[in-house]
C-alpha cells in the first residue's frame, strides 16, 4: 500500500508539491496524470527516497520514507522518467548488476534474468549491449530491472513516454500483466487515455496540487455538466429537431442533414434522459440511434488542468 499524508515539497517560495494526500490500496493501479512540471516526478522522487519532502510524509507498506528509507528501497521498484544505461554492458549483465545490488545470490539471478527478459519480450537481446538497444527496448529493460527483486510496489514515472505507438502498446500489455500479478502500481503519464484502460483509479495533479481523484468514470462524471447526445433519424430531421427543441434540458441543437443526424447538449439527469427517449418513441419519431457521445479523455484532462477544482 502507498500512502502520502500532507506531502509537500517547496523550493524557496515555490510549491512543487502541496499537501498531497493519497492512498493506493494493495494490488491497485493508480494513475497519476498531470502536465509536465505539475509535480508528478517530485512525488515519485520522494516515494523513491531520492528527494526529501519539506513537510508531510509518505508510507510504503506502512514504512515511512523519511524514517526508514533503506527498508523502503527494498520494497519498491522505481523507474524514473529519464534514465541512462551503462555503455559496454550486456543486457543480462545489466540485470545481473542490479540483482546483485538488491542482494540476490548469483544462482537466483541466473534463474530470474531469463524470466524477466521473457516478460518484457527481450529474451532475443540477452547478449546485446544495452546502449545499442532502441528506446522502447531500454524502457522495457528498465522495467525488468525494477522487477528484479520482486517488489510488491512499482513506481513508474512516464514508462511510455517517447515511445512509438507499437512500443507503447507493448508497454501497456506488460503493465497489464503486472497488474494481473497483483502488483501495486503507481504510474504517471501526461496522457490520460493511456492510463484510463489499466488504472483502478486516477489522480489529476496540477501546479503541485491534487485536483481530482477517483475512478476515470467518477472524474468524468464530476466534470461533465453537459452531455452531448447524438441522434440518427431515418426520415426528415425537422420533426425531430422540433421535438427535441421543446425539452427544457436540451440546448444547442445542430442538424447534420448529410448524415441524417442531429446532436444537442443535454443537462438533464440519467432518468430524465430515459424519459426523453421514451417520449420520442411515443411520438413515433423514426429514430435509428440515440447515443451519448463518448467524452474524449483528453478533453477531460484539459478541462481539469485549466484550474477547476472538481473535488
Amino acid at each position, binding site marked *: 500500500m502507498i500512502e502520502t499524508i500532507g506531502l509537500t515539497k517547496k523550493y524557496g517560495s515555490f510549491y512543487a508539491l502541496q499537501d498531497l494526500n493519497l492512498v493506493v490500496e494493495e494490488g491497485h493501479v493508480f494513475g497519476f496524470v498531470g502536465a509536465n512540471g505539475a509535480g508528478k516526478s517530485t512525488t515519485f522522487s520522494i516515494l523513491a527516497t531520492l528527494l526529501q519532502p519539506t513537510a508531510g510524509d509518505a508510507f510504503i507498506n506502512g514504512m515511512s520514507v523519511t524514517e526508514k528509507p533503506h527498508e523502503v528501497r527494498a520494497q519498491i521498484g522505481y523507474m524514473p522518467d529519464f534514465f541512462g544505461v*551503462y555503455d559496454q554492458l550486456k543486457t543480462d549483465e545489466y540485470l545481473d548488476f542490479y540483482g546483485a545490488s538488491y542482494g540476490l545470490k548469483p544462482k537466483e539471478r541466473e534463474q530470474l534474468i531469463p524470466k524477466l527478459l521473457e516478460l518484457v519480450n527481450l529474451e532475443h537481446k540477452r547478449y546485446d549491449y544495452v546502449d545499442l538497444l532502441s528506446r522502447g527496448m531500454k524502457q522495457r529493460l528498465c522495467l525488468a530491472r525494477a522487477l528484479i527483486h520482486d517488489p510488491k510496489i512499482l513506481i513508474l514515472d512516464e514508462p511510455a513516454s517517447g515511445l512509438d505507438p507499437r512500443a507503447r502498446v507493448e508497454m501497456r500489455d506488460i503493465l497489464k500483466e503486472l497488474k494481473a500479478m497483483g502488483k501495486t502500481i503507481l504510474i504517471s503519464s501526461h496522457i490520460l487515455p493511456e492510463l484510463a484502460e489499466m488504472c483502478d483509479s486516477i489522480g489529476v495533479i496540477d501546479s503541485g496540487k491534487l485536483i481530482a481523484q477517483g475512478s476515470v468514470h467518477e472524474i468524468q462524471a464530476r466534470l461533465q455538466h453537459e452531455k452531448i447526445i447524438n441522434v440518427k433519424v431515418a426520415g426528415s430531421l425537422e420533426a425531430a429537431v422540433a421535438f427535441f427543441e421543446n425539452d427544457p434540458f436540451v440546448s444547442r441543437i445542430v442538424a447534420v442533414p448529410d448524415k441524417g443526424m442531429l446532436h444537442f447538449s443535454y443537462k438533464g439527469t440519467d432518468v430524465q434522459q430515459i424519459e426523453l427517449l421514451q417520449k420520442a418513441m411515443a411520438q413515433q419519431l423514426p429514430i435509428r440511434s440515440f447515443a451519448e457521445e463518448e467524452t474524449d479523455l483528453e478533453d477531460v484532462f484539459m478541462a481539469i488542468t485549466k484550474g477547476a477544482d472538481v473535488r
Partner: protein
Amino acid sequence: MKTLLANPVLVKELKLRFRNIKSFSGILFYLVAMSVFVFGFIFLTTSLTGSGFFRPTESFLLFSMMSYIQLGLILFITPGLTAGTISSEREKQTLNILLTTSQTSFQIIFGKMTSSVAFLLLMIVAGLPIYSLVFLYGGVSPGQIAVIFMFYLLTLLAIGSIGVLFSTLIRRTIVSMITTYGTMIFLTVVTGFFLLISLQISQYGNAMPNFSPMSYFWASINPPVVLLTLLQPAVADQILNLATVTFPLWAGYFIFYSVLTAAAIFLSVKRLRVNMHKYK
C-alpha cells in the same frame, strides 16, 4: 573481506574498465614511456662515462627518478580516474537508479573508489618489472621499494578519496575534476612553497635552528618532500633539525593522509544520498 570484494559496483566497474580499450592503451603507453626512460638512462650513462659500467650510485639515481615519475603518475592520473566516479553517473542519469537499490552508500562509494584504486595499482604493478631493473645494478634494497610502494598506496588512496568526495559533492564532472586537480596541486606544490616560507621565517635572524611546527607540518604533508626523505633519510633529519621537531616525517604524513582519506570517504558516504530526516 570476501563480502567487500563481492561488491556489485566494484565488479561492474572493473568489468567496464577492462572492456575499454583506453585502459589497455593507457597501461601500454605508460610502460613504453617508462622503458624508453630507463633504457635511455642506462644507455646514456654507460656511453657518456665511456666506462661501459652502470654503478650502484647511478642505479640509485635512476631509482629515485623513476620513483618521482611514478609519484607524478599517481598524482596526475588519480584525480582523472576518481573525480568523475559519482558525477558521471549523475550526468549519464544512472545515479538515481543506483541510489534506489538496496546497496548502502558505503558499498557504492567503496566500489567506486576500489575500482579506481585497483586500476592504478595494476598500472604500478605492471611497471614493477621495469622498476626492478635497478636491482640488477645494486644500490637499492627491496625494503626501500616496499616502503615507497606503501607510500604510493596511501597517496593514491588520499587523492582518490578526495576525487570521490568532490565527485559526490559537485554535480558536474569537469568542475569536480578541476577542484580535485587544484587540491592535488595545493598539496604537492603550494605546501612546498609554504614549507620554504615557514623555514625562512622561523630561521630568520637566528643562528640556531628555531622550533617551527608549521615547517614540520608543511613538510610532512608534501608528497614530493616525504618521498625525498624516504629515498634520502638524511634529508628528513635535516628538516627535523631545522624545525626542531622529533616526530618522524613519514609518521606525520601517514597520520595526515589517513585522516584525510577517512574523512573524505565518510563525507562522501554521508552526502551521496539525500538525508530524508533533515527537515524534522
